């Protein structure tokens, strides 16, 4: 038996079963579905819409910053635009992007399961997401929010803008995130196919598991914090208000206790995708499987101990600052372990630079920059200089956009044929990737320079000497927008074609490639049995 995985049939509809896309017609068959694949697809379109909206705000912000003083909008609108950009991208796009959209679709397939453990909870999670999104839209049309996505007190408890509605939206979205996390952990524990031991699971699953742990442990704290902000606004309870004997810095502690781990809710799934793409397009067993798997868990663990590095200049004690700084450096270790293992996987592999792999290679470079500049900010002395400057903006965009979103796009291209059963135009996809890469760097590299020269973040106006770099960044954002548009055209154009994707276009070894593209409603014709590891390219190369 040469094949890694024993499945009786992998051609679509061979047993008379319909693909999940055709099994059921009409809006009700989607709105009330409990199929993890359909829920994943609904999530996908929703988060892409959020990405578009957040992107529009980003382009407006960049356009405004083309010149000092007013370019296209007033300072008041500018404050709202960057707040909405941040809040939408964080809560409506990045956090649910990989787990809820791609993860929902792929995770049960990778486990050889028919569905997630709690399908109805999964559907509930989606509709709660929609409800949260509606609240966010309501906040936009009823005056907007101008606090920045961090909702720092005391400004957030005193401003007249629609903070209550927006924080309520984030509170609601938190439940959607928690439900996804609960579902994934229960699914991984109980629904693995026969033979699929923990160390035979694809690394994507390990990444999703680590992410789910953070979603469960961190999100409730954000929930109660946002409730406290709402109570503070409605009742003046006093906990965050220094005039009433409270402590505004306590809000920062609470907020970052969630929001720093949330950063890893965003990056771990990105890393999880890269761990899939690199071995498949290098046709080589992943190097250091256990090191990558456990480094995800290590990152999840350390993520809870570093929140204070956001508050080096907020008046916490020097000792606390030093401890948080030290713990922050620890995160670099598991992150570096991953990067070295990916590079070593590529070494002497037969590398195929198809679109997903292009994104993976881009990820390695951009994450390298994003990760290492994080160390500048984790160092107490340099952070005092760089805190709240464009250096921070550039750093987290290299991680959030340059790493997570790029990995998401890589994953989207990687699984697009599986999800919709259609191959996209490879050339167009490669152009999209290249333009995105160039545009991204053109936008954000100058911001490191701006920040180190003292340009503060979130400012509407700036000194004339910063204009060339700001203008460069704005021009870069146009290339970035063009690149993303080209990528979108390549993917969307594929949907107009007839289904043409083979079950396993990339020669992957994980279980999702052992069923038809798109999969049937029950995922597999017969229960798959796993006998080999997920990246075992030595055997069964026929597929």
């Amino acid at each position, binding site marked *: 038996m040469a094949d890694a995985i024993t499945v009786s049939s992998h051609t679509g509809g061979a047993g008379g079963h319909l693909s999940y896309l055709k099994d059921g017609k009409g809006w009700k068959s989607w709105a009330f579905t409990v199929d993890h694949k359909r829920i994943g697809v609904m999530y996908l379109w929703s988060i892409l819409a959020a990405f578009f909206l957040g992107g529009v705000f980003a382009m407006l912000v960049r356009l405004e910053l083309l010149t000092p003083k007013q370019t296209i909008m007033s300072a008041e609108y500018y404050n709202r635009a960057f707040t909405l950009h941040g809040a939408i991208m964080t809560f409506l796009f990045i956090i649910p992007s990989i787990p809820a959209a791609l993860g929902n679709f792929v995770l049960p397939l990778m486990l050889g*399961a*028919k*569905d*997630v*453990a*709690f*399908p109805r*909870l999964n559907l509930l999670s989606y509709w709660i997401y929609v409800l949260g999104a509606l609240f966010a839209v309501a906040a936009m049309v009823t005056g907007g929010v101008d606090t920045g996505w961090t909702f720092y007190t005391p400004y957030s408890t005193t401003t007249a803008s629609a903070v209550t509605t927006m924080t309520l939206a984030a509170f609601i979205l938190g439940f959607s995130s*928690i439900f996804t*996390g*609960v*579902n994934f*952990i*229960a*699914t991984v*524990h*109980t*629904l693995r196919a026969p033979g699929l031991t923990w160390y035979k699971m694809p690394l994507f699953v390990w990444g999703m598991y680590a992410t789910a742990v953070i979603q*469960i*442990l*961190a*999100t*409730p*704290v954000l*929930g*109660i*914090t946002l*409730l*406290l902000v709402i*109570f*503070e606004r409605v*009742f*003046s*309870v*006093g*906990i965050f208000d220094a005039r*009433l*004997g*409270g*402590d505004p810095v*306590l809000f920062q502690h*609470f907020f970052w206790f969630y929001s720093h781990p949330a950063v890893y809710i965003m990056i771990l799934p990105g890393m999880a995708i890269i761990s899939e793409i690199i071995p498949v397009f290098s046709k080589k067993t992943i190097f250091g499987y256990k090191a990558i798997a456990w480094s995800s868990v290590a990152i999840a663990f350390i993520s809870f101990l570093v929140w204070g590095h956001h508050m080096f200049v907020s008046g916490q004690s020097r000792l606390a600052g030093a401890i948080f700084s030290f713990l922050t450096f620890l995160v670099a270790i598991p992150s570096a372990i991953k990067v070295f293992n990916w590079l070593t996987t590529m070494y002497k592999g037969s590398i195929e630079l198809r679109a997903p792999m292009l994104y993976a290679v881009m990820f390695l470079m951009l994450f390298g920059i994003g990760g290492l500049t994080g160390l500048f900010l984790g160092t107490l002395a340099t952070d005092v200089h760089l805190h709240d400057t464009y250096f921070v903006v550039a750093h987290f965009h290299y991680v959030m956009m340059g790493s997570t979103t790029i990995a998401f796009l890589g994953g989207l291209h990687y699984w697009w044929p599986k999800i919709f059963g259609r191959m996209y135009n490879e050339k167009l996809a490669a152009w999209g990737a290249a333009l995105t890469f160039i545009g991204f760097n053109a936008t954000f590299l100058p911001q490191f320079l701006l920040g180190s020269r003292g340009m503060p973040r979130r400012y509407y106006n700036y000194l004339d000497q910063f204009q060339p770099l700001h203008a460069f960044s704005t021009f870069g954002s146009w290339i970035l927008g063009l690149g993303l548009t080209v990528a979108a055209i390549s993917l969307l154009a594929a949907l107009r074609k007839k289904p043409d994707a083979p079950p396993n276009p990339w020669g992957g070894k994980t279980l999702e490639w052992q069923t038809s593209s798109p999969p049937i409603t029950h995922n597999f014709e017969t*229960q798959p049995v796993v006998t080999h590891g997920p990246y075992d390219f030595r055997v069964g190369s026929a597929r």
Partner: protein
Amino acid sequence: MSQTAVQEQDSRFLQHHFTEMEQQVDASKIGMWLFLVTEILLFGGLFVGFALMQARHHEAFIAAHHHLDRGLGVLNTVVLLISSWTMVMAVHSSQKGDRRKLILFLALTLVCAGIFLGVKYFEYSHKFHEGLLPGKYYSHKGDAVPGQFMFFSFYFMMTGLHGLHIVAGMIAIAWLLVRAVRGDFSAAYNTPVDITGLYWHLVDLIWIYLFPLLYLIG
């Protein structure tokens, strides 16, 4: 009890994506435990906030807590402890397949929860009457120590959130009661009773912490 018996007897409650009942039971329990973890963290934020503010405004908190009626606090604690016991007995009865006792103990749990909320209503209306309200609505006259409003901010947030959890638990238990009367539960299938029991104990446990924190700090 043997697995095959489990499978044979109640395959009508086995969802399509599980191959056997044991797997489904495991998943449900993991799910509920994870949910309970999120609950602890949700309340954890309030507990941390309370601890910090109490340390900062020690005298005001001590003075404010004298407005609470200890007797009623004790009564509610006893009522909830009894309800925990009746819930345990309900779970036990469902595992034995004793439908009559299951219905009885679920009903008793519901009654205890009702008494708890009744007492809470009485306490709340008393506080409302005296102007012992959160934040800017605090209007109690003649305080010797200023700043007592913050204690009542926490009092209402914490007991309010806990009360909502009691209400949610009552809805769940009422639903169990309907299903028990319908005869859904047996020795072979009783997971919903089991995991609702877990939830109910957590709600009780939170009160066990709330009671000394709010009523007995003096």
